[in-house]
């Protein structure tokens, strides 16, 4: 079998060598298609992965808050299910906000495999300094736990999250806010909460600029400091959960929400709009690059089709010698595969080179030189090769069927 295939391959190679210019054009077409597929997909997938990583890392993978998806039924409805058709004008009891029995929720979260939970309390305060006021959302955290569930530490320009524990009344704010207030590290600002409590807070850390996920108007304080400032001792209204596999966030969130009733929001739910945009972007990208590869395969079709037309006499000779129809079909399909294979190998080199160039470019973003995030995984090389080989095989197979149908008698009689 290998001898036969080797012979058919020899014939195919000789045909291609004879049509050198067309062969080079077809190979170049595939190479350019593959090269640009690799470069474009490396950028698209790289940026997508970087974006998703940012989405995942921006906040805990699951956030349980003291909100409910829908209001709980009224006591009358609970007592007589189905009896009350509709209730109007009733007075809703004011309930104290916060996660009830949160230590149990936290313990349940920590029991999940690979999960770590961190309690926090959020609320609003006003920072005052020299007559200037800035509204600020504060997040009270346990630094030890928070550093394990988030990447806040990496986003600090100055200070550390643990400094909240060592400095009395410490607060970490964004660089922009600090600039607006005219304060820096170690400076003290006055913070007043809605209940009217006022505290002096010392700046112990600054977030880097451009960290939109941390917002320009939010700050971190110690959990007990937040509870004291907001007048809500022992209360938390948020549990952030970090999972070892972030992609399990959705089912785990559903499970926790079903168990405790509080809204448990996964990072996928939080970023649903962005993720659906990414799907659209991927569909567009793969459509465009598929079109490039398809156009490249037209070159292969042309070469093989011309080869079949030019080699009708040779086909008749080979048939008379004893080559089967399938043999002849294989010869011309092999021509297509050889062209596609050579194009893929050159395209890989071209793509590698393009990625090297793109990867070396630096762009100033938010005051820092950033490089393009590129996905250089072998998967993209394999997809490009598989798509090109498939397109090349189909492009060659169409004219190859014509070769198999050549009637040697017509050719031999015509030549005689």
């Amino acid at each position: 079998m290998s001898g036969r295939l080797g012979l058919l391959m020899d014939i195919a190679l000789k045909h291609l060598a004879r049509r050198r210019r067309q062969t080079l054009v077809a190979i170049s077409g595939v190479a350019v298609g593959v090269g640009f597929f690799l470069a474009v997909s490396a950028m698209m997938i790289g940026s997508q992965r970087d974006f998703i990583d940012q989405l995942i890392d921006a906040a805990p993978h699951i956030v349980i808050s003291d909100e409910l998806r829908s209001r709980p039924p009224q006591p009358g409805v609970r007592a007589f299910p189905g009896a009350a058709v509709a209730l109007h004008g009733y007075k809703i009891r004011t309930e104290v906000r916060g996660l009830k029995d949160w230590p149990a929720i936290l313990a349940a979260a920590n029991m999940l495999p690979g999960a770590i939970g961190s309690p926090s309390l959020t609320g609003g305060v006003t920072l005052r300094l020299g007559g200037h006021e800035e509204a600020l959302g504060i997040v009270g955290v346990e630094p030890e736990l928070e550093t394990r569930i988030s990447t806040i530490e990496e986003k600090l320009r100055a200070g550390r999250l643990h400094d909240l524990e060592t400095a009395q009344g410490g607060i970490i704010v964004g660089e922009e806010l600090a600039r607006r207030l005219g304060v820096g590290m170690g400076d003290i600002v006055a913070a007043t909460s809605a209940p009217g409590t006022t505290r002096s807070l010392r700046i112990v850390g600054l977030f880097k600029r451009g960290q939109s996920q941390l917002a320009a108007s939010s700050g971190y304080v110690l959990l007990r400091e937040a509870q004291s400032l907001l007048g809500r001792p022992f209360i938390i209204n948020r549990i952030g959960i970090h999972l070892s596999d972030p992609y399990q966030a959705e089912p785990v969130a559903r499970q926790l929400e079903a168990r405790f009733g509080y809204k448990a929001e996964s990072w996928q739910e939080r970023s649903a709009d962005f993720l659906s945009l990414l799907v659209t972007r991927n569909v567009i990208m793969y459509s465009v690059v598929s079109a490039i590869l398809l156009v490249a395969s037209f070159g292969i079709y042309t070469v093989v089709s011309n080869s079949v037309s030019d080699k009708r006499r040779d086909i008749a000779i080979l048939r008379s010698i004893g080559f089967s129809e399938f043999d002849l079909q294989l010869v011309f399909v092999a021509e297509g595969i050889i062209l596609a294979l050579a194009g893929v190998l050159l395209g890989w080199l071209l793509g590698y080179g393009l990625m090297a160039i793109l990867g070396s470019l630096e762009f100033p973003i938010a005051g820092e030189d950033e490089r393009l995030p590129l996905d250089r995984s072998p998967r993209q090389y394999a997809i490009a090769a598989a798509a090109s080989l498939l397109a090349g095989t189909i492009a060659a197979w169409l004219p190859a069927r014509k070769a198999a149908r050549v009637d040697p008698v017509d050719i031999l009689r015509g030549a005689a």
Partner: protein
Amino acid sequence: MSHLLEARNLRRILPGDPPVTLVAEASLAIRPGSFTTIVGPSGCGKSSLLYLLGLIDRPTGGTLLLEGNDVSALDGDARARLRLERFGFVFQFHFLLPEFSALENVMLPIRRLGRLDHSMAEARALDLLKAAGLEGEAGKTPDRLSGGERQRVAIARALANDPTLILADEPTGNLDSQNSARVIAAFRTIASDQGRAVICVTHDLTIAAAADVRISMLDGRIVAIESSPGSTGPS
């Protein structure tokens, strides 16, 4: 004596309005070691009969027996296999593959049959070229060979798989008298010394005279079958 190839009322009619009869009711028998020529005016169906006998074309009627087995209804692959193993073809135009050297052209059927490894196939092809007086031309492509040399390469290729039957269609049609004589001598040797049957379509009276059997055709029909005295011609 048993027949190598036997045709019984073989017909080939091209469909159309009206249908065209290429070969009508052809019956003949070929014995091993015989040299048979098919003669007749142009368009009388000589080549068509040869293509039917060589399994290149399919008959529309009648029976073709190869060593007693009916081969007229075989499928394409089986016919290709028989052509590869049992038949050798030589045409008026040399019909060598232009990209391949003389040696590679002779090796084509051997490699396709796959019974010999590459080095043995090469040795076999070189032997055949040597027998044809072309050992010095083995590496040359057809465009660097003379007409006579090309035809001798084609004969060497026809013999590559040790066939029992050689079919030739006007093999000297494009050759000068000297080269024609060499080709005729080669066919005689193939038939008488090697015991293969040779069937040759020709206008060349020299070839016809050298044959054991002469089949004359007219308008698609066999009109006469003559045997030379002492030949092993058809029954």
